[in-house]
C-alpha cells in the first residue's frame, strides 16, 4: 500500500470517528435548550413499561408547557439494569438531575452522596403516605407517587367449603390457624396450598418475607442503633420463624418452583397466594366476586407487610436543584398520582388521589390494599446497610429453604451484615 492510500484510510477513519462522535453526546442536566431554557435530565426505571411511561410523558409535557425556565428531558432504563446504570453514572460523575429509586436504597444513595436532601415544601411531603417518603438521618431525600401492598389472595368458596375462618384486618389468622388452614387445604387436594412466590429472587425476598420475620418478633437489624443485626436476625424469634419457613417447604405447603406472578392461583392450582396488589386485576377477572384480599397471618406480634416503593430524588450533582424541585412540586398533583395508581395498579400516595382512584377509591375493587397498607406497612430499615442486608437476607433465606441449619445460617448472615457495617464505620450511625 502506498502513502496515498494510507492517507485515504486515515482520513476516512477520522471522518468516521467524527460522524460517530456527532451521533452521541447529550447534556446531563445543566445544559440549555435552543430557546434558552435550562434542561433537566430525568432518569426513570420504566423502560418497557408503556403504562408508566405514558403518565411520565404527560407530566413532562404539561410541565414543559407550563413555564419557560426549565425543560425536563426523560431517559428511561429497564428496571433490572437501572441500579447498575446509576452506580456507573455516579462513578463517571454523570448523574442526571432527577432520578427515581426504590425506597429501601434511598439511605444508601444519600450516604454515598448520589442524592441531596429533597427540599420539597412540607405541605407536599406531609400529604404523602409515610411509606412513600425516603429518609436518611431524619432528612427527607425522596418522595413517591405511590406505594404497593401485599395480601393473601383466596377464594371465598374454597375457604367456606373447607370450614376455614375468613380473617379480617381486625382479626387476622394466628399462625396456628394459618398452619391449620394450610393442612386442611392440603388434605382437600391442593398439592401446594399456598403460593408465596419463592421462585422469585432479588428484592422480593426481603420485601415479602422480612415482614413475616418482623411479625414473629425478629427483624433485619437492631433499628435502635442500626449498627448490628445481632439478636434481631438470629435471635430466638428469628430462629422460630425461619424454622417455620423451612418446614413450610418440607411439608409442601409452599414451593420454590412455579412461575413468577399469580398464574397458579388464577388457574385454581393453589388455594392461597401471598402476592402484591399489582397482580390483583387478573385474579379479579379469574375469580370475580369469589376473590378475597386477606391480611397476612399474625406470627405473634401482629401482621406486617413491607412498605416503600419507587420514589423521586435529586442528584447531588444537579446544577439546577431549584428546577428539579419545581418539576417535582408540579408532578405531585393528585390527578397525576391517581393516573399513576390506576395505570400501574398501585396505591396512590395522597388521600385526594386515593379518593379519585378507580381501583383504590372508597368503592374500588382494590380498596382493601389501601387498608392493609395503612394498617400493617412497615418500612424496611432506613440505613445505607440495607443494600447488603437485602442480599444477605435473600441468600440466608434461600439456604434455609433448601435445608440449611437455621441457627448457623442466621449467625453467618449476621456476621456478614455486621462486618459490612463495621467496615463502613457504621454508615453514619
Amino acid at each position, binding site marked *: *500500500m502506498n502513502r496515498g492510500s*494510507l492517507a485515504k484510510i486515515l482520513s476516512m477513519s477520522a471522518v468516521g*470517528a*467524527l460522524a*460517530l*462522535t*456527532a*451521533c*452521541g*453526546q*447529550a447534556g*446531563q442536566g445543566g445544559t440549555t435548550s*435552543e430557546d434558552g431554557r435550562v434542561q433537566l435530565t430525568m*432518569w426513570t426505571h420504566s*423502560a*418497557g*413499561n*408503556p403504562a408508566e411511561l405514558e403518565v411520565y410523558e404527560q407530566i413532562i409535557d404539561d410541565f414543559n408547557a407550563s413555564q419557560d425556565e426549565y425543560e425536563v428531558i426523560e*431517559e*428511561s*432504563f*429497564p*428496571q*433490572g*439494569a437501572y441500579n*447498575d*446504570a446509576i*452506580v*456507573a*453514572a455516579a*462513578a*463517571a*460523575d*454523570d448523574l*442526571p438531575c432527577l432520578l427515581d429509586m426504590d425506597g429501601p436504597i434511598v439511605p444508601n444513595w444519600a450516604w454515598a452522596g448520589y442524592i441531596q436532601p429533597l427540599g420539597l415544601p412540607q405541605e407536599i411531603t406531609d400529604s404523602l403516605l409515610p411509606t412513600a417518603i425516603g429518609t436518611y438521618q431524619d432528612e427527607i431525600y425522596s418522595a413517591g407517587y405511590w406505594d404497593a401492598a401485599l395480601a393473601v389472595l383466596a377464594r371465598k368458596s374454597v375457604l367456606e367449603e373447607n370450614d376455614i375462618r375468613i380473617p379480617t384486618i381486625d382479626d387476622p389468622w394466628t399462625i396456628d390457624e394459618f398452619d391449620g388452614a394450610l393442612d386442611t387445604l392440603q388434605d382437600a387436594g391442593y398439592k401446594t396450598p399456598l403460593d408465596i412466590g419463592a421462585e422469585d429472587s432479588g428484592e422480593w425476598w426481603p420485601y415479602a418475607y422480612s415482614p413475616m420475620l418482623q411479625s414473629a418478633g425478629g427483624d433485619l437489624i437492631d433499628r435502635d442503633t442500626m449498627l448490628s443485626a445481632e439478636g434481631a436476625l438470629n435471635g430466638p424469634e428469628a430462629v422460630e420463624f425461619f424454622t417455620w419457613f423451612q418446614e413450610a417447604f418440607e411439608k409442601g405447603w409452599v414451593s420454590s418452583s412455579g*412461575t*413468577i*406472578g399469580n*398464574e397458579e392461583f388464577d388457574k385454581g392450582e393453589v388455594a392461597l397466594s401471598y402476592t*402484591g396488589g*399489582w*397482580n390483583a386485576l387478573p385474579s379479579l377477572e379469574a375469580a370475580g366476586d369469589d376473590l378475597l384480599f386477606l391480611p397476612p397471618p399474625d406470627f405473634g406480634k401482629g401482621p406486617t407487610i413491607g412498605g416503600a416503593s419507587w420514589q423521586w430524588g435529586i442528584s447531588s450533582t444537579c446544577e439546577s436543584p431549584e428546577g428539579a424541585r419545581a418539576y417535582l412540586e408540579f408532578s405531585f398533583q393528585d390527578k397525576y398520582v391517581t393516573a399513576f395508581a390506576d395505570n400501574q395498579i398501585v396505591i396512590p400516595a395522597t388521600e385526594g388521589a386515593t379518593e379519585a382512584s378507580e381501583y383504590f377509591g372508597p368503592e374500588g375493587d382494590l380498596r382493601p390494599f389501601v387498608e392493609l397498607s395503612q394498617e400493617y406497612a412497615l418500612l424496611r430499615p432506613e440505613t445505607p446497610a440495607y443494600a447488603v442486608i437485602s442480599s444477605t437476607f435473600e441468600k440466608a433465606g434461600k439456604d434455609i429453604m433448601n435445608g440449611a441449619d437455621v441457627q448457623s445460617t442466621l449467625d453467618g448472615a449476621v456476621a456478614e451484615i455486621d462486618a459490612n457495617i463495621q467496615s463502613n464505620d457504621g454508615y453514619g450511625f
Partner: protein
Amino acid sequence: MATVSLTSRPASRTSADRVEHVLRHRRKVWSYVAMSALAVVFLFPLVFMFVSSLKPDAQILGDVGSPRAFLPVGDISLDNYFGVFDRVPVGQFLVNSVLVTVLTVGLGLVVNSMAGFALSRMRWKGRSVVLALVIATLIVPFETIAVPMVYWVAQLPTLVMEGGVLKYDFGWLNSYHVQIVPFIANAFSIFLFTQYFSTIPKSLDEAARIDGAGWFTIYRRIIVPLAGPAFATVAILTFLPAWNQYLWPLMVVQQEELRPVMVGMQYFFQLNTAWGEVMAYTSLITLPVLIVFLSFQRAFVSSVAASGVKG
C-alpha cells in the same frame, strides 16, 4: 488344491468385503443416528424459542413439560411480535448492534492483525516483553475493570456538534464510539494473529524486502492474503462478544436511541415477565447471528480446522 485355492480366495475376499461393507454401512447409520440425536438436542432450545414466540404466555407455561412446548399448536399468532415492537424500539436497537459489531470486528481485524504482524515478523527491542504483557491481560476479567473504565471514558476528550459548530469537550459517554473503541484491541486476537503469522516462512518477507517492499506492503500483500483462516477465526470469535455486549453499554449509554439489542432484553422483565414477548424478542435478535453463522459456516469450519482454535 490350486483350483480350490484360486477359487476360494476371491470367494472369501468377497464375503469379507460384504461383511465390511455391511459393518461400514451400519457404522454410518449409527453415526447418523447419533449426529441426528445431537442435532435435535442442540436445536431444541431454538425450536422452543421460535415456537413459544408464537404462543400466549399462559400457553407457553402450560406447555412446558410436554412435547407441545416444541410444536406450533394451540393459540398461534404474531401478537408477541407486535407486543415487542410496542415495548421496545427493536429496529433501532438492531441497527445499533449491527453498527457497533461490524465496526468492532472490522477495526479489530485491522488493528490486531497489525499488532500481531509487528510482534511476529518485525524485530525490535522488548518485543517478547510486550507480547507477554498482552497475553497477561487475558487473565483480567472485564468486570473488574469496568467501573474504572467508565470513569476514564467519561474523561476522554471528544468533539461535539452544537448548533452546527464543532466543539471540543470531554466525555465519551452516550455515543457509538464508546461502545466500539475499547474493544478494538483484543489480547486474544493479537495472540492468535501472532501465532498464525509465525507459521508463515520468513523467507517471504526477505524476498519482498529485496524487491523493495516496506513493512506495510509485506503485511498487506503477503501476510494478509496468506492468513485467511486466522482472519476468519478472529472475525467469528470477536463477532459474538460484540453482538452480546450487555454490561458495558448498560454502563456507558443512557440514551435509548444508542442502546444495543442485549440491553433491550431487560425491557421485558417487569413485575410480571411477558414470556411470549421475551421469546419473540430473542428470536428477532438471534436471527442475525444465525444468518451470519449459516452464511459463513464453511469458512468457520475450515478456519477452526486451520487455526486449531476450538473457541
